[in-house]
């Protein structure tokens, strides 16, 4: 009897995996790599014109070949007849991966305590499994800069591709130290500081920035000479800007602050990027003359002043671009980075033109981040970040058919889509309460 019991238990144990499997329905679709041939599309290369009836071969994560007569071989073939191919879009400024639910502080990792924290690494806090990642990438945005917020030097931003299980797998190869240039603007209606107070605060902050910069310079020069300095990770990080290893991305928005920032960087030997630049159109010539690239946005935004023309924000990117400024576009968003193509479309419609607007979300940010040899266009040898769509992906009604990031074929699914699948036709419906 005892033995029977034992063998009965053993029998039951063998059933366990069966039961466990039986509780799971359906198959989870993961990103998959491989050799893919996107056949017979209209390829918008961005840098080398538009190629009709052209195929693109993806192999080892790269764009291996572009042409009309590529033999499929052992590649998986996607018939792209009647479809368009564009490079994956790059958003030059987001908090994607750092913020999950804006009003729940436990899920907000974009801000640290302190005014001088350039050593805070956005890449560390990126959540590769954020719900917003698959929501974003099916729109054709494949790469984003994720940016720490807050103090004078809040941290270091990182460029990430929207595929990967770890931050390092996502890392796209560019970082930038962030500076919030002392602001003379108001943070909102509830910001009731007097004009004098705002001015004083911004002067004080600028003085602090100057001191920090001078210290970082000394730090760099001393370490170059072999000095062994005390552990000072903040200074060590800012010194990377002085050495030219990392660019300094300066968030600045009002016209007078932009002028102040341009003056501040004058004579400083480092790589600079301006971000935000809401009032760039007022001082576009000065920005162009300084030769500093700009990452601007959101485009769908209100004018900064009541007296401004209603389309001031829509037309800002175009005006700067026409003045000769190198302009990239950002959403400055987290959960709705998927709207980058629409921000770009508005910039295009309000003066920038489609061609420049496309560059502003592809090759231009790639150039600004020093990755023009790897990202931002459909060219042989570049990273296979590609989108296939029914028509111009800036058009709202365009449908994205395939997305490839780092050569991975991305599943066109996310929670929004799964909820659609589940609830479009609810069952049971009204019949059963």
């Amino acid at each position, binding site marked *: 009897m005892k033995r029977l019991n034992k063998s009965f238990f053993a029998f039951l144990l063998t059933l366990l995996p069966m039961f466990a499997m039986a509780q799971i329905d359906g198959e989870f679709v993961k990103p998959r790599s491989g050799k893919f041939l996107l056949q017979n599309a209209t390829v918008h290369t961005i840098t080398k014109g538009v190629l009709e009836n052209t195929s693109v071969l993806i192999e080892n994560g790269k764009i291996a070949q572009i042409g009309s007569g590529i033999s499929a071989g052992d590649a998986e073939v996607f018939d792209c007849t009647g479809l368009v191919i564009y490079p994956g879009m790059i958003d030059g400024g987001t908090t994607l991966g750092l913020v999950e639910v*804006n009003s729940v502080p436990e899920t907000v990792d974009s801000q640290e305590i302190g005014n001088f924290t350039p050593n805070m690494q956005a890449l560390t806090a990126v959540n590769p499994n954020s719900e*917003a990642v698959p929501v974003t990438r099916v729109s054709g945005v494949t790469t984003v800069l994720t940016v720490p917020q807050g103090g004078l030097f809040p941290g270091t931003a990182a460029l990430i591709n929207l595929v990967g299980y770890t931050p390092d797998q996502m890392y796209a190869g560019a970082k930038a130290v962030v500076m919030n240039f002392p602001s003379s603007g*108001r943070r909102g209606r509830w910001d009731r500081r007097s004009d004098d107070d705002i001015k004083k605060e911004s002067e004080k902050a600028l003085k602090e920035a100057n001191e920090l910069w001078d210290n970082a310079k000394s730090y760099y020069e001393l370490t170059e000479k072999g000095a062994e300095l005390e552990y000072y990770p903040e200074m060590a990080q800012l010194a990377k800007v002085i050495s030219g290893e990392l660019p300094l991305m300066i968030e600045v928005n009002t016209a007078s602050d932009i002028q102040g920032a341009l003056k501040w960087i004058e004579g400083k030997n480092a790589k600079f990027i301006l971000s935000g630049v809401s009032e760039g159109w007022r001082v576009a010539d000065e920005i162009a003359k300084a030769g500093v690239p700009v990452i601007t946005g959101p485009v769908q935004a209100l004018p900064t002043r009541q*007296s401004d023309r209603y389309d001031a924000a829509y037309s800002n990117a175009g005006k700067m671009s026409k003045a000769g400024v190198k302009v990239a576009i950002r959403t400055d968003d987290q959960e709705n980075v998927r709207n980058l193509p629409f921000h770009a479309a508005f910039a295009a419609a309000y003066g920038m033109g489609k061609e420049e607007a496309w560059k502003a979300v592809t090759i231009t940010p790639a150039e600004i981040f020093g990755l023009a040899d790897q990202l931002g266009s459909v060219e042989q040898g570049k990273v296979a970040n590609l989108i296939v769509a029914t028509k111009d992906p*800036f058009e709202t009604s365009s449908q994205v058919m395939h997305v490839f990031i780092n050569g991975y074929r991305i599943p066109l699914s996310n929670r929004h*889509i799964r909820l*659609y699948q589940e609830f479009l036709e*609810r069952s049971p419906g009204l019949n059963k309460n």
Partner: protein
Amino acid sequence: MKKLSYFLAALVGLSMQYAMAQTPKGSVLIKNATVITVTNGTHENTDVLVQDGIVKKIAPDIKAPNGVETIDASGKYLMPGIIDAHSHIALDVVNEATAPIVAEVRMKDVVNPYEIGIYRALAGGVTMSHAMHGSANVVGGQNATLKHRWGSTDPADIIMQDAPRTIKFALGENPTRVHGRGRGIQPRSRMGVEAILRNGFNEALQYKKAWADFNAASSQKGSTAVAPQYNERLQTLADILDGKIIIHCHSYRADEIYMLINVAKDFGIKKLVFQHTNEGFKVAPEIAEYTMGASVFADWWAYKFEVYYSTAFNAAILQKNGVITSINSDDAELIRHLYHEAAKTQRYGGMTDDEALAMITINPAKQLGVSDKVGSIEEGKQADLVIFEGHPLSSYAIPQMTFVDGVKYFDINSDEDDQRQLVSATEMVEPIYLHEETAHKCMQDTEYLFETAEALFSLNQH
């Protein structure tokens, strides 16, 4: 004495004239447009004749009557003026947050015709907005339905006087945060929200009965009945029970939507529209069966916890389940491109052009109870119209001209940079707002309840 009565009669006459003062009405002939009527197809190379603010004729080759201006809209699109069923523009204050029920307050008392947001909405083709009370209370104040007659200085002139009364309700995080967490009173939970509603309506029933009893008694000969004390708050709730007011309820989660439907059924309330309704897709059949529909965001989600489980396909799911669905802004920025927001229902759910455009025209008109007057281009309707360069659902579309009652209030060709009508005498330098959160007004004026900067930050939530 006689003189005085003449004088009084004249005064009465004058004031009557004043009360009946006409808002501006225009006449115009728009020629050769692609006319998107929304309710009756799209017609190429068609003319629309407007006389005295009313669409008189839709046909090819209409001859302009004497003195009527003609606008050539060849190659352009003409659509009905866009209607935003959820907005807070043109309001001086938004929340009276002092009690869970403040049905007595009225947004028409705080309408600000000078707000630049009206002009900016016109520049986005929006001719009407539903100026709503905020979401701090389970039963908020009564809303105002606005017509964007920019340039009017009398608040009464931008209110659509022939629109029915509507009132704001709010469920979920906002009322529970303001009252439960902020003030330590009911409601702190979604259970409390339901209790507030049921208690309020039951009190209103008692109030109604007290008045009915009094009225019955006082008509008796020699009655000594004393009138119950008048209470505007309860009277308004009674008006809701009597079907005189349309409820527009801020809501997110499916459970709370379902709860309000049940409460409405129990009290025989038929006029009910859900606002935001992010999880409406989960109870779409119930919303379709019982309510006047849902007014939703095109793609907003994850800005607070109760919208974390949202989908951009919400509008499409609702529409396909038979819910009257509109796309709203709740935002001074978004209101400027509702045509683009509507187009997102094509990306997320494959709506047809007419279905998508209905969501910003005839459907919000139905939800505001004004679909017999506006919301489509039809002969006899009020001439709220927009001319677009490019199809309005294209992301490259640019609104060209916007008309309210046949009067042109926006023309891209004669648009001047500074459109302010009122420049502050006390502000020497114009403030520059970097993060303009007029965008986030739903919880405006409740700041005093929350002391920390963090709470303030998180208040910028819809």
